[in-house]
């Protein structure tokens, strides 16, 4: 059991900051290192895709459900993909019950934007019949343990859930929806693999993947979503301000680290085949 405090003591804060000044972390990591990441895929039988991702002690379980509905009028031949996040009171004494608060909405929005602008989900392939029926995908993230940096863990779990997906294939026959018995899999639905990388900032020190104590004493955070060759979304939150040079440096770092992480995690191994 870990005791979670809302406020970090001055001694602990100084210790973390002194370490950062020496370009070290209080938990032994370097400035640009992630905590250990572990991924389990297709863990929920009722979901059409799922992932259980741990980033250090932070744990997020994500499930993918689908519905068939009418498309938006401005995109009559494209499916829809939505992301929701819930910070369960199970996960931390800092979380309370009730409707989604700012933190959970930010988590869902940042992950959503990273995926949406990256040519990741092939929404055109999620169309059954233009103007009539398209797939609506729901990616629902549930935080099961909170130990800092939900956004990066959420991004990885949302992507893994998409890759592990197995959605029944439907087609229209005489205006009625029939199931073909086949499944749309992750390879069919997903193209680009966007990753979101979050950096914390204290004074003028910037570091990757803030753990909970670091997050609590940070002046602010910045989340950058990257694909193999593009930046697809940026979100700065908190009071911190960033210089132009810092943003350029972080963008470059994100591409490098993202490339390596994508290789290390080898997402396509989580593809599921049902025939």
């Amino acid at each position, binding site marked *: 059991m870990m005791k979670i405090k809302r406020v970090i003591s001055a001694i602990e804060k100084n210790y973390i900051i002194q370490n950062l000044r020496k370009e070290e972390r209080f938990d032994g990591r370097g400035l640009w290192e992630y905590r250990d990441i572990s991924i389990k895929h297709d863990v*929920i039988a009722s979901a059409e895709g799922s992932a259980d991702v741990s980033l250090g002690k932070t744990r997020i379980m994500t499930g993918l459900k689908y519905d068939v509905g009418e498309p938006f009028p401005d995109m009559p031949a494209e499916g829809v993909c939505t992301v929701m996040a819930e910070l369960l*009171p199970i996960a931390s004494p800092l979380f309370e019950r009730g409707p989604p608060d700012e933190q959970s909405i930010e988590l869902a929005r940042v992950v959503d934007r990273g995926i949406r602008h990256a040519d990741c989900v092939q929404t055109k392939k999620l169309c059954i019949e233009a103007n009539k029926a398209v797939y609506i995908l729901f990616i629902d993230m549930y935080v099961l343990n909170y130990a800092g940096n939900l956004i990066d863990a959420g991004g990885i779990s949302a992507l893994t859930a998409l890759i592990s997906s197995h959605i029944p294939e439907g087609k229209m026959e005489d205006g009625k929806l029939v199931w073909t018995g086949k499944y749309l899999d992750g390879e069919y639905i997903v193209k680009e693999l966007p990753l979101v990388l979050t950096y914390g900032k204290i004074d003028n020190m910037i570091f990757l993947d803030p753990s909970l104590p670091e997050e609590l004493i940070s002046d602010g955070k910045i989340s950058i979503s990257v694909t193999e060759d593009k930046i697809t979304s940026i979100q700065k939150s908190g009071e911190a301000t960033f210089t132009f040079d810092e943003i350029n440096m972080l963008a470059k770092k994100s591409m490098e680290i993202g490339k390596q992480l994508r290789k290390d995690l080898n997402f396509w191994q989580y593809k599921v085949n049902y025939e």
Partner: protein
Amino acid sequence: MPLIIKDEYPEKLFRDDGKRLDGRDKTELRPIKMEVGVVENADGSAYLEWGNNKILAAVYGPREVHPHHLAKPDRGILRVFYRMTTYSVFERKRPAPGRREKEISMVISDCLKPLLFLELYPGSSFEVFIEVLDADGGTRCAATTIAALALADAGIPMKSLVTAVAVGKIDDELVVDLSGIEDKAGQADLPCAITWFNEELSLLQFDGEMDLKQMEKFLSLAKTALSEIYEIQLEALKKKYIDIQEEVSGGNN
């Protein structure tokens, strides 16, 4: 496991060889696996896999009551929040808690209260959060069983554990531990829970039809099943400490 596209009920709930659709005998339980201490941040926690059910429970407490007006000056309060994830069921569940979840929360809370010494904790609260990650029939019983284990893991003084199971009637036969499809297509469903310190029932619901004779049979079937599950509960609770002991002694014990 591939998804069933049509949520249709089969005509018969027994196979030709007399076994149930998932290959069980009438009084056979689904495989049950329990583990305690799975949520790092919580005061106590437990995880359960019961057939296809996957349930996580965490306990926080004793702690301050929020909102404050709920606090009782002469005793502590127990609050149970049973929730399901949107992807735990065939059709995506709406994220906001529904009437069913609130009712089950209350039933579980009433079932657990007799176990605790709430009068020793005036002004504070115990909160049990139960999240059904994957559902396949009998989640309220599974949730009750795992909630008791999470409370015990939190080190909260308890009179005993509580164990729950559902018995029911499918195709005119009495069976133990209904699966999702048996629950929906069956004729009767009787979830019950036993508090072991006095061996009395602290959760009892019933939907369906039965006569007095069947009622007796139901309860005796339940009792045998409950003892079986209780053993698994105790094992799970002990295992955490056996693991710690082995770690400390370097596996020489």
